[in-house]
């Protein structure tokens, strides 16, 4: 019988399992050529045999700067996404900005409009936070009538997790002096489309960061170099890259990306607007679609969970399409609005199974099943798909995406 094992059982079973592991490469294979050595490098790259681990790109044929690239979630471990594999969604390309001539402007309903050059910003107190960042359109193939047959990254990979370091925005807002009647801030990027969004002032005065660094180094070009907005837990499109302007105001601008796009049409014909927080979501990255289990035996089921409302409280896993659930182990650190890695030991007997995970966050929000989500939201919402993901394991070990 297939079953999830408790941790102690896993350790014992693991011992048995390790006995059948192939010999370590260090002791390896007679006749293998002696490895070549190379010298130092100024900036390290992945091992040559790992260079297939890449972001897949989906871009507009007539407008190459418009599209997405997905984080290959199935190929990664832990909770942090390497900066070069962080997902991208650009509306009109990546501007290459000269940091010498870059400035952030804060104006509008303020006592004193201010300009901050990059050298100024680099002198402010900083804060580092590990945070997930998810596109509002992530996983949108989940609304399709038929389950999409693609690896987890090419399906759900418009989410990544980085340690962001920057200046708490409220310091600069306080410096400019906010008019007490102000309620909104229009944030604008320096990309060719001058992408703009309207943001409630309260969020910007709370935990917004002006990020200068990502995973310890200065931002990558495609992640907004030299400055991007970070809004913990909120939809990616709000976290303006190449941030250059903040206009403090008393009302939203009703820009394209908060009206025509990134709003969710409901079955009754009305649409959810300014739905900022990304809901609780989890998925199993191993095993996942496109992989094959070589045979019955012991496997680690592992995946990622996150919620825009706070920290992950619990993740359950199921092997029978959600009829029975058992708790998975959450791996430390479990941080507020950050990826959390979960793991469970699974003894597979070689018969068909349907693996699922579901997360509950610290505020008690539960990741919905697909049927429940569609009953509430219909199928035209397009954005904010966060339903439970199901992987069928066939008798031959093949893993594929199903609706269950």
């Amino acid at each position, binding site marked *: 019988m297939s079953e999830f094992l408790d941790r102690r059982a896993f350790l014992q079973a693991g011992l048995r399992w390790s006995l059948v592991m192939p010999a370590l490469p260090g002791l390896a294979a007679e006749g293998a050529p002696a490895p070549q050595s190379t010298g130092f490098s100024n900036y390290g790259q992945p091992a040559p045999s790992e260079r297939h681990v890449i972001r897949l790109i989906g871009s*507009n*044929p007539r*407008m190459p700067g*418009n599209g997405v690239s997905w984080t290959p979630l199935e190929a990664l471990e832990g909770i942090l996404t390497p900066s070069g594999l962080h997902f991208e969604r650009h*509306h*009109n390309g990546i501007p290459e900005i000269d940091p010498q001539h870059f400035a952030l*402007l*804060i104006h509008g309903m303020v006592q*004193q*409009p*201010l*300009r*901050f*050059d990059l050298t100024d910003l680099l*002198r402010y*107190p900083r*804060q580092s936070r590990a945070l997930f960042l998810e596109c509002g359109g992530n996983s949108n193939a989940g609304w399709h009538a038929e389950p999409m047959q693609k690896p987890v990254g090419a399906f759900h990979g418009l989410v990544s997790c980085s340690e962001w370091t920057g200046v*708490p925005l*409220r*310091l*600069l807002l*306080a*410096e*400019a*002096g906010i008019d007490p009647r102000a309620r909104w801030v229009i944030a604008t990027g320096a990309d*060719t*489309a*001058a*992408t*703009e969004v309207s943001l*409630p002032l309260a*969020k910007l005065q*709370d935990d917004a960061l002006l990020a200068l660094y990502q995973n310890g180094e200065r931002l990558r070009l495609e992640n907004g170099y030299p400055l991007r907005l970070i809004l913990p*837990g*909120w939809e990616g499109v709000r976290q303006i890259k190449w941030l250059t*302007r903040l206009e403090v105001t008393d*009302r*939203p*601008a*009703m*820009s*394209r990306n908060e*009206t*025509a796009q990134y*709003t969710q*049409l*409901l*079955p*009754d*014909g*009305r*649409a*959810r*607007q*300014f*739905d*900022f*927080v990304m809901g609780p979501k989890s998925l199993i990255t191993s095993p996942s679609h496109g992989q094959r289990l070589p045979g019955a035996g012991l496997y680690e089921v592992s995946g990622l969970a996150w919620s825009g409302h706070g920290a992950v409280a619990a993740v359950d896993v199921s092997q029978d399409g959600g009829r029975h659930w058992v708790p998975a182990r959450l791996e430390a650190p479990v941080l507020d609005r950050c990826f959390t890695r979960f793991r469970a030991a699974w003894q597979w007997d070689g018969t068909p199974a349907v693996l699922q995970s579901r997360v509950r966050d610290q505020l008690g929000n539960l990741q919905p099943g697909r049927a429940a989500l569609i009953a509430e939201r219909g*199928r*035209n919402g397009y954005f904010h798909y966060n339903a439970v993901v199901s992987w069928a394991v066939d008798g031959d070990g093949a893993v594929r995406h199903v609706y269950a």
Partner: protein
Amino acid sequence: MAMARCVTSMRDGTGWIAGQGRLTSWRQAGRRLTAGLVGIVCLPVGLLLTSCATSAPPPTAVALAPHLGHPVTSDTLAGLGAQIYPDGHGLPAGSGLAVDGAVLYGQYCASCHGREGQGATAPELIGGDGPLSAAEADKTLKTYWPYATTLFDTLARGMPPANPAALSDDQRYALCAFLLARNGLWPADRPLDGASLSAVQMPNRHGFIDLSARGNPQP
């Protein structure tokens, strides 16, 4: 008296926070505080009395920041181009006619959005049928967009993508007139300007549920 000062961080790393109740620290914390004090002094007398009577120093700690922002003049701001709002605030002077917009559309837009605006490698701009509650709802400029001002803003910022600056404001009004007219939302023979654009009643003007309060931090 110059003095090196060590300030303990009171909240989890969100800046250098001076402990409250230390008025000297606050003064040193810079002109923001001074501005705050001036603000209090300027309050109407009645309010000032109440606030003096009821409030000690503000309950939150004051963040220390180096205050390096450079004042920006209104001239500089005027040169930046105004943010466009649904009430028409920020829309530039100028106007345009649908006939001219039709020519511009063929020249600058049709290659991606389709000759008839039916959509190609870029979204549909002309058309869209049926109610938004339909199973296969058609979300278009005509059926879905709540404000016509958003159309001008979209063009001014980013269309055509290769060179949004190629078009003048008059040309943008002409394109808006053309697209709105072809969608039955504007009379084809009337010139469109900022005032009339913001007065266009889009069919889905009241179709949105504003959830903006939800994501905000608890007061």
